[in-house]
């Protein structure tokens, strides 16, 4: 049997809006993934450490406070520094389209904005996970 895809759903930063994170987490679980949700207010270090400890294939982050430009690249770097070169890192939230190229440049594989169906996220992970 194929090994199940393990996903860490993470809320970096201080914002408490986790409706999206929880809905995505549950949709991923219903799609057959193993899902770990960090809860609110995780520092970049905590997220990178959780990714390592849980040995996940995917880190899916959600930010609605506007702190994505600061936090997303920082978390990518910390995860890579821990030797997780292949971990697929994706993000979502209230993120203006003009910010997306820089985030991709920083190593976020895809950014999902409001109105995205959960199936689009599931398909993206299945297609891109290593």
């Amino acid at each position, binding site marked *: 049997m194929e090994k199940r895809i393990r996903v860490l759903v993470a809320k970096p930063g201080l914002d*408490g*809006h986790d*409706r999206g994170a*929880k809905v995505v987490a549950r949709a991923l679980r219903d799609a057959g993934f193993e899902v770990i949700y960090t809860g609110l*207010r995780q520092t970049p270090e905590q997220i990178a450490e959780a990714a390592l400890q849980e040995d996940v294939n995917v880190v899916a982050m959600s930010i609605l406070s*506007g702190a994505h430009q600061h936090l997303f690249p920082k978390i990518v770097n910390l995860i890579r520094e821990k030797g997780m070169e292949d971990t697929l890192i994706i993000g979502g939230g209230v993120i203006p389209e003009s910010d997306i190229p820089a985030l991709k440049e920083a190593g976020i594989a895809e950014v999902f904005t409001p109105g995205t169906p959960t*199936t689009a996220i599931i398909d993206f992970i299945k297609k891109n996970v290593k």
Partner: protein
Amino acid sequence: MSNEHEKIQTELAQYEASVEKAIARFPERANLPEKRLYTPLDIKDTDYAAEISFPGVYPFTRGVQPTMYRGRFWTMRMYAGFSTAEESNKRYRYLIESGATGLSCAFDLPTQIGYDSDDEISEGEVGKVGVAIDSLADMELLFDKIDLGKVSTSMTINAPASVLLAMYIAVAEKQGVTPDQLKGTIQNDILKEYAARGTYIFPPRPSMRLITNIFEFCSQKVPKWNTISISGYHIREAGSTASQEIAFTIADGIAYCEAAIKAGLDVDAFAGRLSFFWNAHNNVLEEVAKYRASRRIWAKVMKERFGAKKPKSWMLRFHTQTAGSMLTAQQPNNNIVRVALQTAAAVMGGTQSLHTNSRDEALALPSEDSVMVALRTQQVVAYESGLADVIDPLAGSYYVEALTNKIEAEAWDYIKKIDEIGGAVSAIEKGYIQKEIQDSAYKWQMDVESGAKIIVGVNKFHVEEESPKNLLRVDASVGIKQKAKLAKMKASRDNAAVKATLVALEKACVDENENLMPYILNAVRTYATLGEICGVMRKIFGEYEAHVSL
């Protein structure tokens, strides 16, 4: 059954038989209310005098004031704040010049969670979702040239509400305005932070103490201040249904009353200053019924459960905000129409104040142009639509009255369930309320994805479009500027005085019989920072740790 009802029953049966053929040809859409038509039969058991009655009269189904908007419109209160105190002050003065009749302050996340701008955890968040306030110095800039004796100010602040209220009082003092003249609201509703919004600091017990301390302090010193805004808004935003929104919020309200009464306060001394905060969602008639039902339930709770004697204590007064979660990033101009309908619902439901969201808020903080359209929407509804001209205009609609009854019944079922669990605090600690909200949120998303629920421009009538321009940005220089300002302030204040007030506060935190408000006020006056004051309380009270189950 009366003769008239029998006649309606017979004719209704004939009608239902007559439409069968039409339905066979044109099958009805999915996700509709159970009945296609409402008649006098649906409200035949509703006692007008007891359940509907008159505006300004128990149980206030028709509104809390006797003449509602015929004398004065609701307060048009636009939630705003971003970047530095100086920038937000400019936006406030712009809003007042544009006809806004009250202020509503949005604070950035470090402020909401009790951290200063120079704290490591604040990096990237300073000034982003609201204005950064580190000390009284920032608060002085925020309200510069705004007369606190005239304006009413609502502050969306919860865990550190006591500190921001103290800063507001201290700024007013400097303007020569005494606390008894101040009008406004602090959100101060910690329970929904645990359940839905996420900006908690301390565990429930000390948090409830801070809230009752504020109730007591304000009843003596700041009598016109709304000491809490018990909020369903964020519960709905997190995904709840209309009935859950009012049920969970009223359950929170019951918990606050119980805590205050347990602390020795007389219910009529604080109940009149409790206020509520509801969402205005997309379904217009459901929302109107929800507002009406919420007033009826609260009146019964206060009179029957708590034995409040003053009519003011029975009234559910509420602020409304249109639903942020219903704004779409796709075709943002469509949001103007959504907000107009939501405004209509809030007004027909009898709100006391209203914030209308801007069309671009699914993308970023609103631009000045977008805010203007949102404010104008309220003004069009007020002055042109006629919706505000007659009190509770939908009363007597068979459907709206039946729906009011249905939402009330569903909410009571939840309130009873929460009572059985041991009240709202226990229900939150056990994760019951969070789970109910999450289940509703997931169902909503699945309905949208299956097409059972249509969102125009998202899962139907989609078009390819260019990404919108002119979005408001708060760049990283704001954080740097704010940090520099804070360092300068710390170097120029009397640090010995700061330390003395913080030591006194710490001692008071340990003694549960002390009201903390005077100590916090003293600390604020010496320019002790929000982070320093909350740091003292963190040390004594500890921090809340959430347990999430998906």
